[in-house]
């Protein structure tokens, strides 16, 4: 891993430059977090539906 501007490059890169392995693991973690958040939202959606249950009466008129 290098920090700052690598030598001999025309486009200077700032900040932390990840290795291929680190970039791959970061992508895998990001996907896992995305899936977990989606499942969490779905969990609360269905819990809300179940808890409301028959208390939600369709409004007429």
């Amino acid at each position, binding site marked *: 891993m290098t920090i700052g501007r690598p030598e001999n490059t025309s486009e200077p890169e700032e900040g932390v430059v990840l290795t291929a392995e680190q970039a791959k*693991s970061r992508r895998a973690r990001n996907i896992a977090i995305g899936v977990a958040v989606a499942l969490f939202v779905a969990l609360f959606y269905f819990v809300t539906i179940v808890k409301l249950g028959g208390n939600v009466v369709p409004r007429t008129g």
Partner: protein
Amino acid sequence: MSDASFIIDDASAPRAPVAAPGDYFALLKPRVMSLVVFTALAGILLAPVAPHPFIAFASLLAIAVGAGASGALNMWYDADIDGLMTRTRGRPIPAGRLGREEALAFGLFLSIMAVFTLGLVANWLAAALLAFTIFFYVVVYTMWLKRSTPMNIVIGGAAGALPPVVGFAAATGAVDLSSLVLFGIIFMWTPPHFWALALVKREEYGAAGIPMLPNVHGETRTRLEILAYSIALAPIGVAPYLLGFASPVYGVVSLLLGVALIACAVWVYRRRDGEPARRAAMRLFFFSIVYLSLLFMVLVIERLLALSSWLA
């Protein structure tokens, strides 16, 4: 300053994590978590009125995540001694795949999420019990008892025994005798289970500075205590039938398993040297897993059957 001076080599650069999602999952101690799910399910199914299946599922998920979070916090605190024992050397932190700070943040975040989710999905008594379970496992057991007393797993075992109580509370909003009996079974099961392992891994625990019973009071005392706890556990294992919340089938199974467990403990008590002693201890260790799994399996199956016949 030349461009070259901006190049910092690997050794001095801030470390970017290489942990895969699987490493974070390993922090949750999946095998312990599966046992927690199973015992908490038994607690939920003991409820006189079954909760909605999805609420039961969401409650179980929150309890499982809470248990996993306490496992992550345990690995954060114990990273130093985990690296000294072969059994725990491959865990993500001592293996260098994940930093302690990440494990701490992960464990704290999941603990808070699990407790609040259980509170919102089920009720706040269950959430408070889950929070107490995490606190007891991390602070009382991991930080205090584990490195200071050979009674560490006796008292600390309460944390592992609480999931059925949490499950019952999630389903009913209360705690009653039946859930406390399940607590008692796991509580009395924990010492013979871990002391059997400690007999075999005595040197490793000693090298790591963990005062397990064989290291502090010797193997003879440990074998005697294993036998005493097994004899005490067997009748508690039958108690669900005696108290009327399990069937005669459970009664017979728990009686037979209890006798077999005591036989294994007697074997450990009598075989004290060399390979036969090691084999006897490992036999008890593995049979104790079978014992607890089968007891709760029978309890869960007969509750599910009763539930399905009630629904039909």
